[in-house]
């Protein structure tokens, strides 16, 4: 019975010894802590970009939202539907109904060239022409400033993210669409979704400005119940007059964001991984010097009857403690500097700008701490072995 307790006491006292001696090795301990903090900060902040992007693209989309595109089109940009097509689509069974008929909005999606605030250079700003039902289909969307555009008017409203990312987007100013300047009459929010990066207007007006005749690119709709999806999809895809593809909007948006999130994640893990290798060497150096500075203490303890195991464990615990401090520091830095930081990038799949905020989630912080712990354990293991193998007699002779 006394065995394990005794052993724990040994580990605890050797560890306490080690940790209390850290201030004497301030420099090297600090170097290893900061090294690990650097790894975790880079890892967490780069990955938080991917999480933020993904959250904007596919977050908070209700399960009853659907999108219909021409078959073969993997983005709205390259899709095309004629007026007869969109009429057939809105007549399909399964849509929820409002006072004006089915909740289905035929929409046009184009890009316009406008300068980005941060760089001053032109970027592809997404612009959407919508029908009346659009505001019921996306029921989270609301005009937060000014008013909605008038139907049949050359007027636009802009999303909150668009207003903050692109230059000249405020109520009262105008943007060039087609051959004329259209006034901005309102600013809308959409629960953090990608629509907040867009400029909206009446679909009919946009068709005219972009010489699109009477054609659209996608139909956005809201189903009566999420369960109606399969029936709805079958009705459209088996209709011989149509050649369309039907997706849940959540799935569609998720697919639109994969390329970008995959790229950010790959690069982030690659960079942080290489840094982690460097930091592991740093941690090894620190612990090796810690062990060699304490050769005599360790030998003395061993001579007094402390076991090898407790020496190994205590050296590793010390390394782990330093690593965890580094990990917490790095995570905190990433959180303080990047969480909520607004930026925008080009989404390759929609060929247009998406504004998003870095999102440092608890999962990412945990991931960072796990990385830190791994570096600490690897960095502590070899020095711990050396400490345990110290020949007691010769180490004591050095006294």
């Amino acid at each position, binding site marked *: 019975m006394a065995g394990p307790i005794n052993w724990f006491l040994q580990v605890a006292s050797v560890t306490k010894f080690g940790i209390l001696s850290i201030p004497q090795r301030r420099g090297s301990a600090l170097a290893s802590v900061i*090294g690990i903090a650097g790894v975790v*900060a880079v890892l967490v902040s780069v990955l938080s970009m991917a999480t933020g992007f993904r959250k904007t693209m596919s977050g908070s989309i209700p399960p009853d939202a659907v999108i219909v595109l021409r078959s*073969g089109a993997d983005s709205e940009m390259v899709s095309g539907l004629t007026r007869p097509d969109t009429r057939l689509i809105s007549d399909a069974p399964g849509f929820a109904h409002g006072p004006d008929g089915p909740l289905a909005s035929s929409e046009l999606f184009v890009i316009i060239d406008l300068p980005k605030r941060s760089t001053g250079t032109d970027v592809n700003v997404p612009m959407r022409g919508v029908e009346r039902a659009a505001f019921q289909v996306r029921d989270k969307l609301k005009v937060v400033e000014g008013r909605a555009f008038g139907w049949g008017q050359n007027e636009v409203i802009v999303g909150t993210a668009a207003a903050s990312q692109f230059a000249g987007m405020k109520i009262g100013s105008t943007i*060039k669409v087609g*051959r004329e300047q259209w006034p901005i009459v309102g600013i809308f929010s959409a629960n953090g979704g990608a629509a907040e990066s867009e400029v909206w207007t009446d679909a009919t007006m946009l068709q005219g400005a972009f010489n699109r005749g009477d054609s659209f690119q996608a139909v956005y709709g809201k189903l009566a119940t999420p369960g109606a999806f399969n029936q709805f999809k079958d009705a459209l895809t088996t209709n011989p007059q149509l050649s369309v593809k039907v997706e849940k909007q959540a799935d569609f948006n998720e697919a639109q964001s994969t390329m970008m999130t995959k790229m950010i994640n*790959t690069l982030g893990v690659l960079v942080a991984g*290489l840094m982690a290798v*460097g930091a592991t060497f740093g941690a090894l150096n620190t612990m090796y010097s810690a062990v060699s500075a304490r050769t005599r203490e360790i030998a003395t303890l061993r001579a007094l009857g402390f076991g090898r195991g407790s020496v190994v464990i205590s050296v590793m615990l010390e390394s782990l403690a330093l690593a965890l401090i580094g990990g917490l520091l790095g995570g905190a830095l990433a959180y303080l500097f990047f969480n909520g930081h607004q*930026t925008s990038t080009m989404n390759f799949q929609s060929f247009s700008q998406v504004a998003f905020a870095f999102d440092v989630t608890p999962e990412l912080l945990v991931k960072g701490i796990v990385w830190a712990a791994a570096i600490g354990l690897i960095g502590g293991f070899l020095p711990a072995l050396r400490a345990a193998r110290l020949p007691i007699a010769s180490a004591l002779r050095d006294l």
Partner: protein
Amino acid sequence: MKFFPLIWSNLKRKKLRTFLTLLSILVAFVLFGLLSAIKEALTGGISMAGANRLVVQHKVSLILLLPESYKARMERIPGVELATHQTWFGGIYQDPKNFFMQNPVVPDEFLSMYPEFILSAEQKKAWHETRTGAIVGRKTADKFHWKIGDKVPIQTPIWSQKDGSSTWTFDIVGIFDGKEKSTDTSSLFFRYDYFDEAHRGDRGQVGWYTVRVKDPKTSAEVAKLINKEFENSMAEVKAEPEAAMAQEWANQLGDIGLITTSILGAVFFTILLVTGNTMAQAVRERTGELGVLKAIGFTNGQVVAFVLAESCLIAVIGGVLGLGLAWLIASSGDPTGGMLPMFFIPRSALILGLGFSAVLGLATGFFPALQAMRLQVAVAIRRM
């Protein structure tokens, strides 16, 4: 140089420590090399851009088309030597992941506009003779094992043929090479006359123009003249030097430069600390020896030089090995499988990296060297 053995044996004193320090420096420079390659891949168009070329696109949106008739009007503008056009075809070969650009062009004008694409005279002749002929860059030809004479089906969601089909089949009549290592040879080009006749939309429409100016110094003025020429017309244009256009594209992705430099900053700071700490430790341990050196007549300068030489040696060795390794990784090609077609480390980055490694050596050696210089012989020897 005669002191080199002394410096060398100091480095060998704690082999493990030297080795670990070397490895962490090496890792930092591998990262430096790879990040440079990523940055180059994302912004590469800027350095590739021809100084005498302008890009002219629709002012409102680059997805809006321009009339083919603009060519003649542009070529009448003083200072313009040649105008030619391309159109975004947006096709897919087998799988959307196999991304490369395919554009319809007017062969002679196109090849004259882009002398960096090298096509043999006989392949050029074959292109003239084959209406459905296409030329493809070496990189893409190698990737899909295409040979001259192959028929290549490409699907496009944007352009339907008159019969409604969205699959276009091209005959590969030529494979072009790039003049420079940085020339992008991933695109396919086919004949505009075939395209214009076969697609379902309106005739005589093109995506954008490339204009060559007679004198690169006048390109800004020529761009203004072009913009002015089409003011208040059905399709107003935006003319820009090719480099500005490429910069704009890079900016679309967000501030790549800033992100890369901040990551590099974090990495270097980390490595600086790790190495600096190790160096300081190494000098501290040798206080006594340095005292002896001073006692037997070595000057302060020489002692400082020893310490600095040691730190610089380790930094430069690590730097060279790291950059070399990064270069090896980069030359095995694009790690993302198609998204960064131009993945290589530019020479300027290699030179910069070497410079950084020297700076790293000096910076990490500075404090230990200072310490060594200030060392008083009597105090140092007493510590032995």
